[in-house]
Every structure is written in C-alpha cells, then in structure tokens.
C-alpha cells in the first residue's frame, strides 16, 4: 500500500461524508442554527447578569470564543454518531472487505468533520460580528486562533470515533457524549470568568483543556477577559494556553487514534 493510496482512500471516504452534507442541507442548517441560538441566548439573556461590568458589549466579546470552543467540541459527536451509523448499516463491513488502506475510513471521517467545523465556524463568526464581536489582532494571529480551535476539535473527534465504533448506536452515542461534553464545556471559562467559580470547580476549570483553547482563542482574537483581576492568579495551563491546548491535542490523538483503529479492525455489525 503506497502513501498515495492512503491519501486517495482517505479523500474518497471524506468526499463520501461531505456529499451527505450536500444531500441533507437540513443537517448543516441545524448544526449551525443551534450555535447561533447559543450566541443570542447567552449574549442577550444571560449577558447582563453574568457581566460584572454591566455592559453587554464587553461580555459578548468575551463570550464568542467560548461558544466557538463549545460548538466545535459538540461537533465532534458527529464523528462518533456517523461511524456508529456506518457500523449499524453494514457499511464498515463493506469497507473492511475492500483492499483499501484501513486507516482511510477513520482519517476520512475525522477530516470531513474538520470541513464541517470550518463551515460552522464561518457561520458563527458572521453571527458574532453582527452582535458586536471583533477581532482586534492581525489576520495571522486570528487565523492561528481558528486553526487551534480546529486542531482541538480534531483531537476530540478521535475520542468520539473510538466511542462510535465501541458503541454502534448513534442514539446512545449522542446521549452518552452529552454527559461528558456538557460539564467539559460549561465548567470552564467559556461563558463565565473563572473567578466566579467555587474552589474545586475552579481548579477543574483551570486545568480543563476547553478553558485553555478558549483562552488561547481569546488571546489570538484580542478579546480580553472583562474581569482582569483573575489574570494575576492564573494556573499554568491558562498562562500557556496555546502550548497546553497543543499538548492535549497531541496526547488525545496519540491515545485515541490507535484505540479507534484497533476498534475499527474488530468492529462488527449488529
């Protein structure tokens, strides 16, 4: 199997997944509508109550990177649900009986989910701009901020890929991942400044990689924390959020890509 075959096979599989987005446009509409709804809900319903400075504009600027992080993490469940569906329908069996690169199904899947996330981020950025979010840095820094979010989401995709092959039921995957993803994305600096959290939760939030990727994105977009008091007592991950995010991403892929590949080789329909 040549390297070229590995790349071609992965792109064939990714193309197949992307055709689904084209054929079922409702899917993209709803995956982007819910984040838009989140932006509006948090900005205007909770915004005034959460923002200690009382001015909604500052909170909206703070909020957007958090919603980006939350959305791309939620988006990773698509990877798991999609694979679970493929196992259930016997499509994984067909792939496994073909002389293709075994890695292609998983890399194709996770890569097409990156494309999905790019589309979602574009829609959300536009919504953000409408409600008053601004990028206050240069284009390269901003781009790196988006790329960092995508890298982080890509890593989470591999956890979901493993789960999707382990538990081949799309419904169970959706429900099970919510149990993990809700605390991960809410016990973090995504929607509230960290110093509002009580002791143990705060420690969890400080070391939560979702906080780090959010913090990194805020720095790279130039969206300051409206409550600068917290900056003095930041934990190590939040002082080096880009590095911490990358360490997590690499570690997660290093653990879950082999696990998912192993599970793929034994995946059985029914």
């Amino acid at each position, binding site marked *: 199997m040549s390297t070229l075959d590995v790349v071609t096979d992965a792109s064939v599989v990714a193309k197949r997944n992307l055709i689904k987005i084209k054929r079922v446009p409702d899917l993209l509409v709803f995956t982007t509508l819910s984040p838009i709804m989140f932006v509006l809900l948090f900005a205007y319903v909770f915004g005034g109550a959460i923002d200690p400075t009382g001015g909604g504009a500052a909170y909206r600027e703070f909020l957007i990177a958090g919603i980006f992080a939350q959305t791309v993490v939620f988006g990773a469940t698509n990877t798991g649900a999609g694979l679970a569906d493929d196992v259930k329908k016997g499509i994984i069996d067909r792939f496994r*009986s073909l002389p293709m690169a075994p890695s292609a199904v998983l890399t194709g899947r996770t890569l097409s989910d990156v494309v999905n996330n790019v589309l979602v981020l574009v829609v959300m950025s536009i919504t953000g701009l409408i409600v008053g979010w601004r990028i206050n840095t240069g284009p390269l820094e901003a781009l790196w901020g988006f790329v960092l979010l995508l890298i982080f989401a890509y890593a989470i995709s591999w956890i979901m890929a493993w789960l999707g092959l382990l538990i081949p039921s799309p419904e169970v995957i959706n429900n099970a991942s919510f149990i993990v993803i809700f605390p991960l994305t809410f016990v973090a600096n995504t929607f509230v400044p960290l110093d509002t959290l009580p002791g143990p939760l705060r420690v969890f939030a400080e070391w939560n990689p979702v906080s780090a990727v959010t913090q990194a994105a805020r720095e790279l977009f130039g969206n300051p924390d409206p409550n600068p008091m917290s900056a003095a007592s930041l934990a190590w991950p939040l002082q080096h959020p880009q590095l911490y995010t990358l360490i997590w991403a690499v570690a997660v892929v290093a653990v879950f890509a082999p696990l998912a590949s192993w599970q793929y080789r034994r995946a059985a329909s029914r």
Partner: protein
Amino acid sequence: MNTPDVAIEVAGLVKRYGEVTALDGVDLQVPRGTVLGLLGPNGAGKTTIVRILTTLLQPDAGRAVIDGVDVLAEPREVRRRLGLSGQYAAVDEYLTGFENLDMIGRLYHLGRRRSRERARELLEQFSLTDAGDRPTRTYSGGMRRRLDLAGALVAHPPVLFLDEPTTGLDPRSRTEMWGVIQQLVAGGTTLLLTTQYLEEADVLADDIVVIDHGRAIARGTADQLKAQIGGERLELTVSDEGRLDEAARLVTPLGVAPPVTDEHRRSLTMPVSGGVKALRQALDLLESEALEVDDAGVRRPTLDDVFLTLTGSTTEESP
C-alpha cells in the same frame, strides 16, 4: 492446499465467543467456477463462516485459502480477489447509485476514469441506469440489494460471497435476484452463498452444505440431499386425535421413511416418493377404515424437514 482448480478451501475452522462455540471445525471445498450453498437456520454459523473468509473476523483455529491466497496470512491480498454482499444492503443511502459504485471502484484502486466506467456498466447490467443518479434512499428493497450486489462485482472478483442475498425480499424481487445471480455464475465466477431456503440453494447451488450448530451436518448436490431427506412430504390431519397413531400405522408402508406425528395439531408428516399417487392411496386406505381426514396434501421439503431428518429436531427446537 493450493490446488489451482479449488477457489475456496477451508479446513478445521473454529470460532468461539466466550462459552459459545459458533463454529466447531468446518471444512469446505469449492471448485473454481462452481456455486456452494451454505444452508442452515439463523445462528447456525453461516454468517460467521462468511465473515472469516472475507477477513472481517479472525478464527480461533483452522485454515482458509481463497484463490490460492491464505486468508489469515495475507488478508489484503485476499480482499483484492473477493466480492462481498451482505445480509442487508450496505449501500450509503445519501449517495446516488452511481456514487456508491464509483466510491467502491476508487477504493479498489481502479483509478478515477475506470471507476466511473465500471459504475455505469454495472448500473446498466443491473437495470439501475434510470435510478443511477438518485440517492439510494429512494430505492426499493430489491433495488438496494441489486446495487449492493453490483458493489461486490466492481473489481471483477474471481470469488464472490453472498450472505443471504434474498432474505427479506418479496417473491418477485427474489426471482429477479436469482436471475441476476445465475447470469453471474454462468460467467464463471466462483460463488459461496448462504441461505435459509432449500429452494434457493436448489435453484442456485451446485453443491450444498447443511450447517447446524457450527458444524457441517450434511453435504452433497441438491438431488443427493433431497434423496437423503426424501423428496415430497405427505401431510394429513385427522379429525379424531385418538386415532392419529392408528392413521400413522396405516400409511407407514406408503412412505420412504416413518411418519412423524404431532398430537397437538392432530397431524402427521411423512416423506413419500410418489407424491399425488401416495396421497390418493393414503386417503383410500384411511377411508376404508372409516378414519375421517380434515386436511391432506403433498408439499415440497422445507429446511425444517431437512433438519428433522438430519438431526431429529426442527429448527425451532435448536437453541
């Protein structure tokens, strides 16, 4: 073991799932260009055999060689030589028929141009040209099965595995599917087919192996097997439950094997060779003894009869 005229060779295949033994030492030989039918009830181990031979599952013991290539040692080389169509149609419902086949061609590394040509050829061959550019979720069950089978043929594999290709199809689609399979076989493809229907194995297979509890319990041509289990069945239902045994005694000389009685249904079943003639004789005999009959008939053997004869238990009684 690398006999050039043997396309599929299986020896001592064993597969266990914890305490359960799914396959208990299965041996198979399929000469090139012939069709082997694996016949058995649900859970007999047919699908497990197919999954092992198509590299989807690792056996606990045994050897399998397909087209001269060892399945366990060189799975990727084996995948180049086989086509698989599963129990349910593994087609992507969001892709069109053309896109499904084109994707499979690309994954067999036929190249972009050849994959497209092949996809069009197969759509034509399976009468799906008109539906070729529609997403397959608009297809009927029969169309999906045909597309799935077409998918197995993309790379002209010398060996083809069809796992219950007609289960769940209506009678018309089933007959259509049989026609398609017969055409393929006429082209020289070696085929291993699993089925729950004796009739299907009869129509399509050169040789039949009957599988039960992970073991091959009988093998031969359809005619040999039918001779072994007796051809047609005489079925009688008597009015008076108390006289069922008497009826059984009376008709015994007409059968090729002793009758089996079912007290609950007041009925008896017996393999006969003479068909309608045996039925008339039986009715005359019972009438002369004033034994009233509610229902009588001759029917072809079913898988249940095969099991009844070979194992002494019906498929429903198998755990």
